[in-house]
C-alpha cells in the first residue's frame, strides 16, 4: 500500500469510528427524548452531561477517587513487587517452572472475585479488602509473565555472555533483564488493568467508599443521570490510566 493510500485508509477508519459513536449517542438521545424510555432506566444524555459538569465542578468526586486510586496503588505495589520477585526466583529452576507454572496458570483461571465475601470477612468492608482482592488478582498475570520472561531467555545469549566472562550480576543486568523486560512489562500492564477492574467491581458489591461505591449508591437512590455521569468519569479515569501504562510499557520496550 502506498503511504497516501494507507493515510486515506486511516482517516476513513477514524471517520467510521466517530460516526459509530455519534450514532450510538443519537440513538440514546432519541430513545429518551422521542421514544419514551423511562428516565429512571435511561437518562437523557444531555442531563448526564450536565450532571458530569456538576460532579467535576463541585469536586464531589475527589474523596471517592482518592480512595479508589489509593487502593489501586497499594494493591498494584504489593502484586508487582511480590509477583516479579517470586517469578524471578521460580524461573531460576526448570524444575520449579515445571511445577509452578501450570499451578499458577490454573489458579489464574479461577474467577477470584467470587471469594470477595471471604475477603470482606477477613479484611472488613473498608479499603483493606479491596486492596487484598486487587493484589491477589493482579499477582497472577505478573508472576506468570515474569516466569515466562526470565525462564525462556534464548540459551545462546546466556552461553555467549558466559563465554565472554560475564559474572552472575552482569548476566542478570545485561542479558536476562533486557531479554525478559518486554514480557514482564506486558504482565505488569495486565496486572494493573485487572487490579483496577477488580477494585472497581468489588467496590460496587460491598464497600464503604470509592468510585464503585458511589455509583451503586446513586443507583439505589434512583439518581440515574448522576450515576451515568460517574460511570463516564470512571471510564475516563480507567482509559487514562490504561493509556499511561501502555505508554510506559512501550517506552520500556523501546
Amino acid at each position: 500500500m502506498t503511504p497516501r493510500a494507507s493515510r486515506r485508509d486511516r482517516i476513513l477508519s477514524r471517520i467510521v469510528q466517530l460516526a459509530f459513536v455519534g450514532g450510538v449517542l443519537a440513538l440514546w438521545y432519541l430513545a429518551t427524548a422521542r421514544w419514551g424510555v423511562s428516565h429512571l432506566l435511561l437518562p437523557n444524555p444531555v442531563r448526564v452531561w450536565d450532571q458530569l459538569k456538576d460532579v467535576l465542578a463541585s469536586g464531589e468526586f475527589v474523596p471517592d477517587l482518592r480512595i479508589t486510586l489509593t487502593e489501586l496503588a497499594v494493591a498494584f505495589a504489593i502484586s508487582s513487587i511480590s509477583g516479579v520477585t517470586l517469578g524471578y526466583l521460580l524461573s531460576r529452576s526448570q524444575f520449579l517452572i515445571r511445577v509452578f507454572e501450570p499451578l499458577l496458570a490454573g489458579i489464574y483461571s479461577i474467577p477470584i472475585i467470587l471469594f470477595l465475601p471471604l475477603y470482606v470477612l477477613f479484611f472488613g468492608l473498608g479499603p483493606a479488602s479491596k486492596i487484598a482482592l486487587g493484589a491477589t488478582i493482579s499477582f497472577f498475570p505478573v508472576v506468570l509473565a515474569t516466569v515466562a520472561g526470565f525462564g525462556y531467555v534464548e540459551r545462546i545469549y546466556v552461553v555467549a555472555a558466559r563465554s565472554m566472562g560475564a559474572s552472575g550480576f552482569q548476566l542478570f543486568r545485561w542479558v536476562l533483564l533486557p531479554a525478559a523486560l518486554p514480557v514482564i512489562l506486558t504482565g505488569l500492564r495486565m496486572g494493573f488493568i485487572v487490579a483496577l477492574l477488580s477494585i472497581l467491581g468489588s467496590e460496587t458489591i460491598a464497600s464503604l467508599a470509592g468510585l464503585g461505591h458511589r455509583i451503586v449508591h446513586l443507583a439505589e437512590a434512583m439518581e440515574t443521570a448522576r450515576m451515568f455521569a460517574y460511570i463516564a468519569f470512571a471510564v475516563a479515569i480507567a482509559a487514562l490510566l490504561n493509556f499511561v501504562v501502555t505508554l510506559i510499557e512501550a517506552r520500556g520496550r523501546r
Partner: protein
Amino acid sequence: MASQDVAVRIRDVSHQFGEEGQAHYVRALADTSLDVARGELLCLIGPSGCGKSTLLNVIGGLMTPTAGTVHVGGTPVRGPLPREIAFVFQENALFPWSTVSENVVLGMMFQGVPRAERAERARNALAAVGLADFADHYPGQLSGGMRQRAALARALSLQTGILLMDEPFGALDEQTRMILGEDLSVLLSRTEKTIVFVTHSLGEAVFLADRVAVFSARPGTIKEVISVDEPHPRNPEFVTSEKFHALRNRLYTLLHDEIRKTVSAERGRDNAAAGEGAR
C-alpha cells in the same frame, strides 16, 4: 610438535549426552586427540551430528567432556576462558536489544577491559569487519551476513589468542558466504590468532584452513587430517586452481562414506520409530 607451539591440546576426549539406555542417549565424540598449532586455522568438518560442535564447546570450556582433557596454553580447561578464547556462534548470538557497538562494548565489559579502552577498541573492530557505518544499528536491522560480521567484530575486540567459530556462515547464502570467507582470510592473515573453525562446506574448509580435520560418523572421531599448503591471505584465484580441486575432491571422498553411514543410521532410526508408531 614442540609443546610451546601447541595452542590447544586435545587428548582422548569423549562425550555422551544422557546415560546408556535413555531415549536421548547419544555418543557424540569418541576418543578424539588433536593438537592445534599456534597461529594456524584448523577446520573441523564432518557429517552432521559427528560431534564437531561438541568438540568446539569442550575446547572453549562451555561443556565438560565425559572423558579426556583439553589444555589451552598448557593449563587444563575447566570452564570458559574469556581472556584466551573468543567464540563466534552460528547465528543470532548478538543481543537484539543492544546496538551493534553496544554488543561489542558489552563483550569487552564482560571480559574485564577497562572502560576507557572499550569505545576505541569497538570502533577498530567494527572498522576491521567493514561495519563502521552500522555501529548504531540494531542486529534486527542488519542482514544475516552483516550480523555475522558484527559477531566477528565482537570476538575480535576481545583480543584473544584463540578464536573458535561454530559454523559462523552456516545460515548464509552461498554468495555472502564466499565474500565473508575471502574477507575473513584477509583479516586473519594480519593477526596471529589460532582459529578452530567448524563448517559443513568442503570449499570453505579448503579455502580457509591450514589444516582440515575430517570427522567420522557418530560417535565422531578424527579420521584424517589434511594440510592445505597455501599462504594467507588466499586469493579468489585459489578457488579455481588445480590444487584447490584436488584437495576438495580428497575431502569429498573422505566424507562421502561417513555421510552415507550417517544417513543410513538415521533412516534406520526413522524406520524403527515408524514401526513403533504403527504398533
